[in-house]
């Protein structure tokens, strides 16, 4: 018998390009804030689900264990989830398994990233996502794959760079209201179009920054949640989906694997018409077009997201507020932490704690993360 799962607390650190803190110190800060938020202590935690990107970023073997002291692991179950960029939301999905299964009642989720460790830049480490025999000899950098996908997406729906740039304008603007954001800014479409072309059609301002940061969430079973808080946010649907490692087998214009993950989560949460039934969207936006690409899949309608964007409906005061947090483009992109930040945003929005970012009438929200060679879909649906 599946049990209902709730989010009862959240905490996060600043997202910054270089923080003079160790991973343990970042994790400690996020966990401490999360515990203060829900009024629990680490002794109340029965299991920990942790998430962080490849060990290569830290040059430290099995870096999941870095969190073991900050989350006081002695005597509790610990597992590390890794599904590429999808890790942050994947951590919430796995936390749900822990409680819905009936095994645990109180589970701590923590996700973090220190992307400033590799010197001079994390970029070359991403090369290792490509096939070693046929693709790595070509010297690919990470942005290639996005550029190939973005061009295909623009062609499929006949949309220009001017419209896609609006995503950066919106998200960086939204991030001005996020107290922990790295790149909140008031910019224009022209700023995006005039920023340097890195890998056409991707300009610098189309891309989220590299960041350091950590996020923690506390999950509880239904019965426990009611003891802990009067305002639980229910984690009512989860979905996870993986496609082939061979990206050359897909049509890059539509992330079908995200669609399938969303459909799993919607079925569980009783959502049949996401456009009507969901009040807040937090799709994964490491690149501008990615927000639209993913929103298309969350709505199950290829090409709808750019239309909604053009009509202004994705603004915080629009009909379908999308990335009210400021997203990865505005708040920052410490990989695993960025995904869990999106789930934390749903918790803050749906429990009325989002401050100046608050979306009116927010009852149901969806968060999604994506990763690796365009193949990972992780989705959660929350409601109050």
């Amino acid at each position, binding site marked *: 018998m599946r049990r209902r799962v709730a989010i009862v607390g959240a905490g996060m650190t600043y997202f910054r390009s270089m923080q003079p803190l160790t991973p343990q110190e970042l994790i400690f800060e996020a966990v401490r804030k999360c515990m203060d938020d829900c009024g629990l202590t680490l002794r109340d935690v029965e299991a920990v689900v942790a998430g962080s990107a490849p060990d290569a970023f830290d040059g430290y073997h099995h870096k999941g264990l870095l969190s073991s002291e900050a989350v006081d692991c002695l005597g509790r179950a610990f597992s590390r989830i890794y599904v590429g960029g999808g890790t942050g939301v994947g951590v919430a999905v796995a936390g749900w398994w822990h409680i819905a299964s009936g095994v645990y009642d109180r589970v701590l989720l923590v996700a973090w990233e220190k992307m400033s460790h590799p010197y001079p830049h994390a970029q070359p480490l991403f090369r290792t996502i490509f096939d070693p025999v046929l693709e790595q000899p*070509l*010297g690919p950098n990470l942005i290639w794959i996005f550029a190939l996908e973005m*061009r*295909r997406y623009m*062609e499929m729906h006949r949309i220009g760079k001017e419209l896609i740039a609006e995503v950066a304008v919106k998200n960086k603007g939204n991030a001005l209201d996020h107290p922990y954001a790295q790149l909140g800014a008031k910019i224009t479409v022209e700023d995006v179009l005039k920023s340097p072309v890195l890998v056409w059609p991707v300009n610098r301002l189309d891309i989220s920054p590299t960041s350091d940061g950590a996020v923690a969430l506390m999950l509880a079973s239904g019965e426990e949640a009611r003891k802990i808080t009067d305002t639980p946010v229910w984690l009512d649907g989860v979905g996870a989906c993986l496609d082939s490692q061979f990206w050359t087998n897909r049509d890059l214009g539509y992330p079908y694997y995200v669609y399938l993950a969303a459909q799993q989560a919607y079925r569980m949460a009783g959502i049949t018409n996401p456009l009507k039934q969901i009040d807040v969207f937090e799709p994964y936006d490491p690149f501008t077009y990615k927000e639209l690409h993913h929103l298309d899949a969350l709505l199950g309608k290829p090409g709808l997201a750019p239309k909604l964007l053009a009509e202004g409906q994705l603004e915080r005061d629009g009909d379908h507020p999308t990335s009210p947090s400021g997203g990865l483009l505005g708040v920052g992109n410490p990989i695993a932490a960025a995904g869990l930040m999106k789930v934390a945003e749903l918790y803050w929005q749906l429990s009325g704690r989002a401050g100046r970012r608050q979306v009116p009438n927010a009852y149901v929200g969806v968060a999604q993360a994506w990763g690796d060679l365009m193949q990972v879909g992780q989705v959660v649906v929350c409601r109050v």
Partner: protein
Amino acid sequence: MSIESFYEYPAGIALSIFLQGLREGKLIASRCGKCNTSHIPPRSYCAKCLNPINDFHEITGLGFVETFTCSHISLDGSQAQPVTWVYVRFEGVEGGLLHRLDPSVAPEKALKVRPVYHGERIGSILDIKWFTKAE
């Protein structure tokens, strides 16, 4: 801190045949004996049927551009000479290949292309110099 390590990856059954083909100036695809699906790069098993594959055959090499990009940065993110990269598919064959486009050709959707091989070949994806416009 830096990690000093070199990696050697075996090409495996199917890719070894593919690389041998490149050395001879040919593109080799695989075909599943059960569902008859052809695939490039070739596979040693069919992911749909979970069937081992023993059928490898040469394809014409006449492909078309599915999507493309132009990179202005190098591997480490620093500024570099722009290079156009194309994702090439082949009629009737699943999958595709990522490679450079001949700099004298302007990229466009559905452009018909063919591989240009180096004179001296060693059995590597770099035996293909680039793809160029097919007449």
